[in-house]
């Protein structure tokens, strides 16, 4: 622990000196009496000060939580000698809030004491928390001993789950079992048709009622339930925000909700973060994939880059054939806009959620500002209509609608979706 003299040490010493010298100069013994308590305090306080030896052990090294959750960051303090007063202060990174960031407690010799701070997870993200400062003042507070404990607790805050009742259906499915009733016929639950029995048909497929009526064996046919590949294509080139939120914030929340929902329906979900840094998670299914995707999402950030990027840099395995690609983008960056056109040109089943930057931008004042605003809006509408002309549904998502409402609109547009090459 490093020693830090308190402000009062110098002040009391100067006061003591001034009073004693003043007493001698003015021949007033009262001033010596006035100096006596300060002299006593300095002598006792400094003589009794011994550097403390405090060991601190963090409670856990990794915590997972959901936005809005309250977590407890704990540590155990052990002192070699009794300490009348020790202050433990924690420092929370932006995004985490500590209601009471300091605790003052007593420590008995070799008696471990637990210190717990309640931390509210305000915003999704990965944080390194648990940094603390221990401050143990000497017996009369003239010298304080400080020790900094570096942050060592990894806190992973996942976006708050949003309700998604129905999802856009992919145009094509896989051979794996899932929740989508396909148009083909095979093993499944959904009745499709009847046909005459042929050698090789299983006995359990025979529809006895129809066979008896038609005097010939007939079997039932079913639509099999299949799963699909879904790739969430996130734009991390730009972030338009106003401090309370931004397009990246909305993008990550929506992506988390979509990933959770698609994985629940046994689809294989992958993610591609297309921005200054290219990041991806290969499509897969299951609960492990949920956490893989969420872990990847909370590390999403805008990395400024002026280098040109196109879809050629994306590994082929991250965009499987027949996958439904759901792009989440504010459509602000030319690289992302071009990449979406390229994907569509390759015959990818694509839908775009336009994460609107409009709610986060202050409308400029004056005639010129008003004109610029209107031109910008017209450009955005023109861009959306160009995508629609290519067969790509584009749905604008402002802050006035839920993800579910946006997805409902996409579902409506894609009701009769087919993938074609343009």
């Amino acid at each position, binding site marked *: 622990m490093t*020693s830090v*003299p*308190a*402000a*009062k*040490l110098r*002040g*009391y*010493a*100067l*006061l*003591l*000196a*001034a*009073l*004693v*010298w*003043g*007493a*001698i100069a*003015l*021949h*007033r*013994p*009262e*001033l*010596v*009496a*006035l*100096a*006596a*308590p*300060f*002299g*006593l*305090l*300095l*002598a*006792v306080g*400094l*003589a009794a*000060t011994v550097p403390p030896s405090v060991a601190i052990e963090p409670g856990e090294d990794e915590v997972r939580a959901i936005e809005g959750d309250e977590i407890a960051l704990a540590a155990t303090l052990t002192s070699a000698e009794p300490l*009348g*007063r020790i*202050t433990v*202060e924690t420092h929370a990174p932006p995004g985490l809030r500590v209601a*009471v*960031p*300091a*605790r*003052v*407690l*007593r420590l008995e010799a070799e008696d471990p004491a637990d210190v717990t701070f309640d931390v509210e997870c305000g915003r999704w993200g990965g944080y390194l928390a648990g940094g603390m400062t221990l401050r143990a003042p*000497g017996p*009369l*507070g*003239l*010298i304080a001993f400080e020790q900094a404990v570096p942050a060592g607790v990894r806190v992973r805050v996942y976006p708050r789950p949003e309700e998604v009742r129905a999802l856009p259906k992919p145009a094509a499915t896989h051979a794996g079992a899932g929740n989508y009733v396909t148009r083909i016929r095979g093993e499944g639950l959904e009745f499709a048709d009847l046909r005459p029995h042929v050698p090789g048909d299983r006995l359990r497929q025979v529809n006895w009622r129809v066979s008896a009526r038609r005097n010939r064996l007939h079997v039932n046919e079913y639509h099999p339930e299949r799963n699909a590949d879904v790739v969430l294509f996130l734009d991390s080139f730009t972030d338009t925000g106003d401090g309370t939120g931004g397009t990246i914030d909305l993008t990550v929340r929506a992506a988390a909700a979509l990933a959770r929902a698609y994985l629940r329906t046994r689809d294989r979900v992958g993610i591609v973060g297309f921005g200054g840094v290219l990041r991806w998670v290969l499509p897969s299914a299951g609960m492990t994939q949920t956490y893989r995707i969420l872990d990847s999402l909370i590390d999403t950030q805008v990395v400024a880059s002026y280098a040109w990027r196109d879809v050629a840099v994306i590994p082929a395995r991250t965009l499987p054939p027949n996958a439904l690609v759901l792009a989440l983008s504010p459509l602000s960056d030319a690289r992302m806009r071009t990449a979406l056109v390229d994907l569509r040109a390759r015959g990818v089943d694509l839908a775009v959620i336009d994460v609107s930057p409009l709610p986060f931008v202050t409308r400029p004042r004056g005639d010129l500002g008003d004109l610029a605003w209107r031109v910008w809006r017209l450009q955005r509408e023109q861009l959306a209509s160009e995508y629609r002309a290519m067969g790509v549904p584009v749905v604008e998502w402002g802050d006035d609608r839920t993800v579910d409402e946006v997805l409902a609109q996409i579902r409506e547009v894609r009701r009769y979706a087919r993938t074609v090459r343009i």
Partner: protein
Amino acid sequence: MAAHTETVASGNGRSAVVVAAAIAGIALAGAVLARWEAGVVWSVALAAAAYAAALALAGGPTDQGAPLVAAGLVVAAEVGQWAVELARPAAVDRGIAPRRAASILLLAAAGAAVGSALLLVSHAAAGGLVLTAAGLVAAAAAMVLVTRLARSA
């Protein structure tokens, strides 16, 4: 403190001394509100200076209330700094506040006792050059002791 300084003060500079003592009180409150720890000490120093000035202006017999003034100054300084610490949001365990309050009162009482003893000694001893020189040496020795203790801590 300001009231006692007013009773002690007399002569031409009385009003200035009283104003200085009042300013010291306001400065102490301001330092606490501004969470300025050093300001608390300087406010107490200003109050002590006002009292010293009052004594110098008054002349006459020794003020027997000086040990109580000293105890009051220590209590004001320590409680002021405690208040500055309390202004920071912190959860304080039970038992710490009473112990600290007791230590401040004990310190003030011990300081007042030492001050009274010193006043008694000053009454008993006759003045003169030798005693003044001894006082100077004692003052210097006290400062050296404080400095050495501060360095060793």
